[in-house]
């Protein structure tokens, strides 16, 4: 039994046959299992994080009370403070000197909006600096840079998405389409220079949105699906997971009729096959999902 069969080569295509069969197999672990596993993991993580924090705090406390460490700790604090004093002024916006002694021209913006950008919002500060430069050029603007809530940086997710549009859109036409979607969602507020805002505010990459979309499709979470499709600009609706499956394919495999309808209504391509070459229509037929198969056919699935 354990000998190599003589004269036979290993069946190389067996793997492909198996993968094709797997792609058509609708069997999935129960949703309740997934939920319990993730909840359990989250609970353990919270316990670990709490322990780690306590241990860290404890060690710092002990270190602070060790006489030999005190000079080092005080020295470090002093150095940090000094560095802060030297470096901090570089982060303040350059204030334009008020040349005229007459009061500045009244501005329609609110008092709150006139407050200088808080240091905690470097993106807004960067915007203010840009605005102040533009203002100086026009010579008809208030003397001080003005932080306006309306010109606050758009969420970086949109900025980075806009930056990546040509790459993720897969062509000029889709990039242009993405750009239109981006422009409409930004509510006609001029976006800040992408590279500056990108440095300013950390945020998730657009690929995360695609993964979220797939998860929502798989779980049949239609409100979340709609929220992502309506909110996310330039979302790659046909982005694939490791197995080459799109959100539409996952919704099909899990029998999520409504999710399939929503994705198709938002322009999901019904003919994107997974890594094994199986199309959503094939998966729907194999999985005994006639309603989904009909919806896919209506959308042009082959």
């Amino acid at each position, binding site marked *: *039994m*354990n*000998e*190599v*069969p003589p004269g*036979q080569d*290993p*069946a*190389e*295509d*067996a*793997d492909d*046959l*198996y*993968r*094709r*069969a*797997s792609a*058509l*197999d*609708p*069997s*999935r*672990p*129960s949703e309740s*299992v*997934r939920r*319990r*596993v*993730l909840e*359990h*993991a*989250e609970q*353990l*993580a*919270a*316990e*670990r*994080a*709490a322990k*780690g924090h306590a241990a860290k705090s404890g060690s710092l406390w002990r270190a602070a009370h060790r006489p030999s460490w005190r000079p080092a700790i005080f020295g470090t604090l002093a150095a940090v403070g000094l560095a802060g004093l030297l470096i901090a002024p570089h982060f303040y916006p350059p204030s334009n000197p008020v040349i005229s002694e007459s009061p500045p021209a009244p501005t329609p913006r609110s008092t709150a909006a006139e407050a200088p950008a808080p240091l905690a919002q470097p993106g807004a500060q960067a915007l203010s600096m840009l605005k102040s430069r533009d203002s100086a050029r026009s010579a008809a603007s208030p003397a001080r840079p003005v932080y306006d809530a309306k010109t606050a940086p758009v969420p970086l997710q949109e900025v980075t998405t806009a930056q990546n549009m040509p790459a993720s859109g897969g062509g000029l036409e889709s990039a242009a389409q993405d750009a239109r979607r981006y422009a409409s969602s930004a509510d006609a507020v001029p976006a800040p220079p992408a590279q500056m805002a990108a440095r300013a505010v950390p945020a*998730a*990459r657009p*690929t*995360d949105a695609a*993964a979220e979309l797939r*998860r929502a499709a798989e779980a049949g979470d239609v409100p979340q699906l709609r929220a992502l499709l309506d909110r996310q600009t330039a979302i790659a609706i046909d982005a694939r997971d*490791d*197995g080459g499956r799109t959100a539409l394919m996952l919704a099909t495999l899990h029998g999520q009729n409504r999710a399939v309808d929503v994705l198709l209504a938002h322009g999901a391509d019904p003919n994107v096959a997974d890594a094994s070459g199986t199309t959503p229509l094939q998966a729907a*037929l*194999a*999985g*005994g999902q006639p309603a989904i198969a009909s919806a896919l056919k209506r959308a042009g699935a082959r």
Partner: protein
Amino acid sequence: MTVTGESDETLMARYSRGDAAAFEVLYRRHEMRVWRYLERNVGNHATADELMQEVWFAVARDAARYEPTAKFTTWLFTIAHNRMIDSIRASRRQTSLDTLGYEAEDSSPGPLAETVARDQAGALIRAFEKLPGEQREAFLLQIEGDLSVEEIAAVTESSFETTKSRLRYARTKLRELLKDYA
């Protein structure tokens, strides 16, 4: 880099420090592989569900002890293998580990095959269930777990040559069983 682009080993390190999001990425990355390994070995959805939970609970619990000296998938599928063997022992489905899954060699379809036998996928899976247990498990460890022959030999406590033979037999038989669907 976001957590979704990180290696399994890095995600495990993050999770062991209390980052629950890292675990979720890991789980979703390997969920279906582990599921197929378990379900196709035990041939029962409910049992596979129980095992699935046990395996991932063990991963979460032992994360702090995991050392990235081996691939995460090797560790993961070793846990899955051990849990499955324990489950089989407990349920006395087989009297001996040496005969693991050999009862599936008869012509009657397994529970999984019965439920999906009407479509092509069901027929293919049913054909797959006809593989002898040791060959099937070796094949699943390789195709779902990406384990090397040496790793499979270590997990299943078999010799390198035996494992190689099992894999070769499994592929030959699988091809024969699936030739009508090629």
